[in-house]
């Protein structure tokens, strides 16, 4: 049974975004445009490594209304709207983000062991031994004075490293004093003082629009090229006086000695734990300290060619809605695999793909495997599309509230009656706003993952490739079906069936 679950989990339908194909854009204009669009779409090779970064599930895609194109997360431009803490949902004003080093300035800390959020706990005191007739001796009074941090997942608490607080709020401030005493911070402050005078003279600061702040490091970039270009480089090096270290740090020879004598690997920090404490990256677990939680951003996403806003979230950190939400789910048909029986070698099986239509208009879908072919035989499998041309009825909100089947009555062709003008070959089911079609696949090689490529153009000039992964192929000749091995994706054969859907 776990094999079946594995196959289900490894089957997918991913859509391809042609943003890397910048050089192959069509330059022709005129009445041939539609045909050119259809033909000049480059042939899609499913085995190229491009599918690993250019194909996405439909949940990750956006759709630009103006350009009528799919946009993927890699080809949208982002601008930051606000910074907020994921734990306390406090919106940090943009000015203080940099001074707090992109972390939350309030009580939000991260467990050094498991990186989950820590909660502030009041330590309890055992009740003083008084013979009181009223209270039950099992009730303990919470003194509340020394507060400490505790992790709910791994049960770590800050008392283990001796970190306690006087008040329950403003913990970051209470820690500020100990943070400032650290030798590396003091040394850095010294360095800053030394160079600050020189910096102020030589480089006038340039102000950048806040929209460009999303690119990290850009302010230092402009400083270097904008400001320093005018002074003579010789002059610059003469101005800076020699800097003397003020803080001496001893070499920690004991650490090497301790590491050599380790018996248990649990006494050393893991790489994740060390990377979360970049200031000193300790090897010993006792030297890990809770870090403040990183802030997150809310971003506006724009289409790369027409600068149209695709996603605009609300300003408040607690609000999860979007003011503008142009996602692919609401504009292009969603393909899902509804029936995926186990694929056996040399045995033809039918899989059923469901196309569901989110628009309020009817769409006509044209499927093709590659360049208008409906069957394809690669070395890995023989694929036949049984229903290359079909329509999908529009979406109607009433259907969400009613549980009856809404078979298409007057407009479409109900699949059950025989009086339909054309026989509905290959159409498995037509209900509500979706149509399920059958695809017959005969795997010819025993592979770990069978991928099918389909392209779907629409006559509103929308065409896209999809990659359909179908999971492992099993050789029934062996006694037990082999468990699908977790080989890297480069080994997988994929049936790529480009299907084109024409949406009218």
């Amino acid at each position, binding site marked *: 049974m776990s094999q079946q679950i594995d196959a289900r989990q490894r089957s997918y339908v991913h859509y391809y975004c042609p943003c890397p194909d910048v050089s192959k854009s069509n330059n022709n204009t005129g009445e041939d445009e539609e045909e050119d669009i259809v033909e000049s779409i480059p042939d899609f090779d499913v085995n190229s490594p491009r599918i690993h970064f250019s194909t996405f599930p439909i949940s990750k895609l956006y759709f630009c209304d103006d350009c009528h194109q799919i946009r993927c997360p890699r080809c949208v431009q982002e601008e930051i709207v606000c910074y907020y803490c994921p734990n306390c949902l406090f919106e940090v004003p943009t000015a203080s983000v940099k001074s707090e080093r992109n972390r939350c300035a309030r009580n939000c800390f991260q467990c050094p*062991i*498991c990186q989950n959020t820590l909660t502030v*706990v009041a*330590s*309890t*005191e*055992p009740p003083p031994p008084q013979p009181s007739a009223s209270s039950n001796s099992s009730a*303990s009074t919470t*003194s509340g004075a*020394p507060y400490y941090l*505790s992790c709910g*997942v*791994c*049960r*770590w*608490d800050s*008392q*283990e490293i*001796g970190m306690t607080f006087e008040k329950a709020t403003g913990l970051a401030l209470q820690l500020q004093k100990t943070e400032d005493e650290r030798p590396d911070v003091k040394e850095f402050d010294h360095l800053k003082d030394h160079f600050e005078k020189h910096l102020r003279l030589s480089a006038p600061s340039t102000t950048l629009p806040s929209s460009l702040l999303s690119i990290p490091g850009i302010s230092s970039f402009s400083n270097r090229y904008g400001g320093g270009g005018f002074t003579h480089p010789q002059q610059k090096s003469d101005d800076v006086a020699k800097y003397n270290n003020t803080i001496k740090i001893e070499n920690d020879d004991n650490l090497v000695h301790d590491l050599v004598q380790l018996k248990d690997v*649990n006494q050393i920090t893991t790489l994740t734990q060390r990377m979360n404490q970049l200031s000193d990256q300790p090897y010993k677990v006792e030297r890990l300290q809770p870090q403040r939680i990183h802030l997150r951003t809310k971003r506006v996403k724009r289409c790369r060619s027409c600068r149209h806003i695709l996603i605009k979230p609300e300003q408040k950190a607690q609000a999860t809605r979007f003011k503008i939400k142009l996602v692919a789910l609401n504009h292009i048909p969603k393909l899902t695999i509804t029936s995926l029986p186990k694929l056996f070698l040399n045995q033809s099986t039918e899989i059923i793909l469901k196309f569901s239509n989110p628009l309020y208009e009817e769409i006509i879908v044209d499927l093709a495997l590659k360049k208008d072919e409906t069957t394809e035989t690669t070395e890995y499998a023989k694929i036949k599309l049984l229903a290359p041309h079909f329509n999908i009825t529009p979406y109607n909100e009433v259907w969400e509230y009613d549980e009856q089947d809404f078979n298409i009555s007057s407009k479409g062709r109900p699949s059950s009656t025989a009086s339909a003008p054309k026989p509905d070959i290959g159409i498995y089911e037509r209900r509500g706003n979706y149509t399920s079609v059958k695809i017959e696949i005969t795997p010819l090689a025993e592979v770990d993952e069978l991928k099918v490529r389909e392209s779907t153009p629409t006559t509103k000039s929308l065409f896209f490739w999809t990659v359909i992964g179908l999971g492992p192929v099993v050789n029934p000749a062996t006694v037990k079906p082999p468990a699908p091995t977790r080989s890297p994706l480069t080994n997988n054969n994929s049936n790529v069936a480009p299907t084109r859907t024409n949406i009218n």
Partner: protein
Amino acid sequence: MPKECFAIGKRAVVCQDTEMKGEIDIGSGTVLHPQCKILAESGPIIIGSNNIIEENVTIINKQPTPLIIGDENVFEVGCYVEGSKIGNKNIIEAKARVLGNTSLGDNCVIGAVCSTKKDEAIPNNTVIYGDHHNRRTQTASGGVSFNK
């Protein structure tokens, strides 16, 4: 063929809809929520006092030796317990599994969806948590002390 015999202590609460089979001894103050299953198939189950056994918990004893559960444990929703001995003050979180012959000490925490291996003896104060099931670390003593 184990005989059906329930001995339920005072102030214990056993809801209707629980499924109990075999020889079961429930201590005082223990609460059994509805839909839990205590199946003493091959041997008796002895549950201590002041435990909380939440919904959909399955406690099975597949061995002839009695399964002894201590006091003040919490068995959260959906967990599956098949060990040989459970100590006191443990917390077995939602959907956790204690398999085979393992015995739990005192004050342990088995995190959500985590499971132990079969046939091990888990020492006191162990915490099992995380994605990869078996990451263990020791807690300090319960967090109640006001040391130093």
